[in-house]
């Protein structure tokens, strides 16, 4: 915090303003540095006490007095009561509306942040908890070709779905990464009158509903070209979803490549192509990798486009061009519909696998993308030291 002479509640702060006309007056107290962000024992006790009070009140209401039930309702009620109690406490201590608004809004914003983090950990934790039981070794080595949905969990698995996901996303990456990065290069390096409409269309398309992308590929590839539902059609649908993301992120990455580097290359006599190939692309490498990984993380989890285009099978199919090909999201969607607990457990196992893939991709993206453009990794630094 840059400002240290104002209390958060707007009290005039004695002792922090030096008297400019000579020595301090004898009755003024010694200078005390005030930290607006400081949390005092008072605040902690007020918040903790109110929270405890609200918790107990809610418990009494839910368990003893009123015919209420339900976890979500419990915490909502608790939150509202907490705000009421805390407002009363603040008002009785400070006695000012300004202080009340400040304290209450601060608490509300903290609670919102806490809520989001809690929900995220609940989603990940619950999926991990339910999916863990299905993850025997055979889940990764067998398909469902000879296993019925109600069979015990130590037979059958999701190998065909995992292979299908990897193949579909792999083909989608092969198409969308060169196309997306070249388009971003066009938008940022080549430019011209065409750049504006291209950028507008890419922008508006980055939020196209996934089911519409699936419908489009279904209409063009499956219906018009007369091929059956196959892995390649699913890849195309995923491509339609991934390409705008990769293009937009890559364009942002190219934009933050320092212009001085480009000018230096041009001033040394490099052509535009040499500049792009030897200066712009290497400088933006880590950012581009992040763009691709985030695009892949999005593509892996897309369900609706795959549902319309890939078809369903219980067998391993490693040929994207022919025959139905299952992927992890479809596997989840299919087995969650069965009433047997074993098949629901399988669905959760596949969902957990999917979640782990996304998490790993995400962590890699963070590690790779944490550097600034042009910053060298440890290995690159060593190599450049050896060369020079």
């Amino acid at each position, binding site marked *: 915090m840059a400002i240290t002479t104002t209390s958060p509640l707007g009290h005039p702060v004695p002792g922090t303003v030096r008297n400019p006309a000579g020595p301090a007056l004898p009755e003024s107290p010694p200078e005390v540095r005030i930290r607006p962000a400081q949390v005092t024992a008072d605040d902690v006790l007020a918040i903790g006490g109110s929270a405890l009070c609200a918790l107990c009140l809610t418990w009494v209401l839910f368990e003893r007095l009123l015919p209420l039930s339900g976890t*979500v309702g419990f915490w909502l009620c608790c939150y509202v009561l907490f705000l009421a109690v805390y407002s009363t406490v603040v008002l009785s201590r400070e006695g000012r509306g300004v202080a009340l*608004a400040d304290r209450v809004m601060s608490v509300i914003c903290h609670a919102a*942040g806490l809520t989001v983090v809690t929900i*995220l950990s609940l989603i990940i934790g619950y999926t991990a908890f339910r999916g863990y039981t299905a993850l025997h070794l055979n889940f990764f080595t067998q398909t469902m070709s000879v296993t019925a949905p109600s069979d015990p969990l130590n037979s059958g698995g999701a190998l065909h779905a995992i292979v299908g996901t990897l193949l579909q996303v792999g083909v989608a990456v092969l198409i969308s990464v060169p196309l997306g990065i070249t388009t971003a290069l*066009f938008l940022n390096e080549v430019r*011209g009158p065409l750049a504006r409409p291209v950028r507008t269309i890419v922008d*508006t398309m980055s939020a196209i509903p996934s*089911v519409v992308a699936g419908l*489009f590929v279904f209409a063009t590839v499956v219906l018009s070209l007369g091929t059956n539902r196959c892995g390649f059609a699913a890849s195309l649908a995923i491509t339609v979803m991934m390409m705008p993301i990769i293009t937009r992120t890559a364009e942002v990455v190219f934009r933050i490549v320092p212009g001085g580097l480009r000018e230096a290359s041009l001033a040394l006599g490099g052509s*535009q192509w040499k500049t792009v190939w030897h200066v712009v692309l290497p400088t933006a490498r880590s950012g581009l990798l992040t763009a691709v990984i985030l695009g892949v993380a999005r593509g892996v989890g897309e369900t609706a486009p795959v549902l319309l285009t890939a078809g369903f099978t219980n067998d391993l199919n490693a040929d994207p061009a022919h025959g139905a090909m299952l992927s992890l999201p479809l596997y989840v969607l299919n087995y969650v519909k069965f009433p047997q607990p074993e098949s629901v457990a399988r669905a959760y196992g596949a969902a957990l696998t999917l979640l782990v893939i996304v998490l790993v991709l995400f962590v890699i993206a963070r590690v790779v993308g944490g550097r600034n453009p042009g910053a060298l990794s440890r290995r690159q630094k060593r190599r450049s030291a050896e060369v020079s």
Partner: protein
Amino acid sequence: MTPGAYLATGLETGQVASGGDAGSPAEVRRDTRPRPGTADRLFRGVSRTAAITVMTTMGFIGVFLLYKALPALRKVGLSFFTETQWLPSSNTFGVGAVLLGTILIASVALVVAVPLSICTALFVSEYAPRRLRRPMVSLLDLMAAIPSIVYGLWGFFFLQPRAITVSRWLADHLGWFPFFRTHRGVTGLGQYASSTFIAGLVVALMVTPIITSIMREVFSQTPAGEREGALALGGTRWGMIRAVVLPFGRGGMVGAVMLGLGRALGETIAVYLIIAPLFASPGRMIHILEQGGMSISSLIALRYNESGSFGLAALFGAGLVLFALTLLVNALASTIISRSRSGEATEI
């Protein structure tokens, strides 16, 4: 203008200046227009082709959907927008019910997600300790990257049994509000399951990280001078936020909400997993707490497998409506974001 063109202009002026010297040999005007080499021309051609490919593919989507939907649209005409049933085999189908259902789900989602997002964004940009900010941003990005099917599973198996009593409480005590009214036959708790409200809650959780990260971005661009000015005048932190941060970020906030709306309208799998399909009159659809609801995207996911090209044509019509709706919302959002003051610093 390309960097190469800058270079060429510089050379030209240099040439003219030295050509004016006395005693120089006969003036020869050199052709200094940039002459890109083969590699350059190839590079530009390839990148332009890629850009045109992307643009035409994307632009093709709307045209193709319209072309495929025409037979169905021609058959029923304007009643496509008012008819609530979806029976293509007997020529009575329309998006009356599903469009309303889509909008209702998105509205529930926004009512929950917008306050939560504003407060979370304020927490990350204003209240959180500095060392917590980067992890929070990462967590929000991660939350946006979780596949929608995982949200759907979680919403159906974890959230629904725990949130269903809230539905009942709302219906019992706030039933005078038209949206919270329930059919008179509703007695058991199970009749509140698979409702528009529950689906909207899950969609709210999906759009929250998207809205939050845009708002956080906008809030963090508030000029430091204006912040410090508000604090120096004796404002509290909330006073500073209300007087400086929120007005500065207003355009970005509206744009973020619109982007979230676009996502909420198009969400498919989570809604498909949770909701019980219902095609009914608007008077019944707006009972959001009661079992049953529908959205365009889950209609497509539900019926794409039905045989007959006419049924598919009808679905393409529904997809076209969804496409047009999201396109409109997104175009509006990007206009608002680009017009807002956000990102401009104030001169002091």
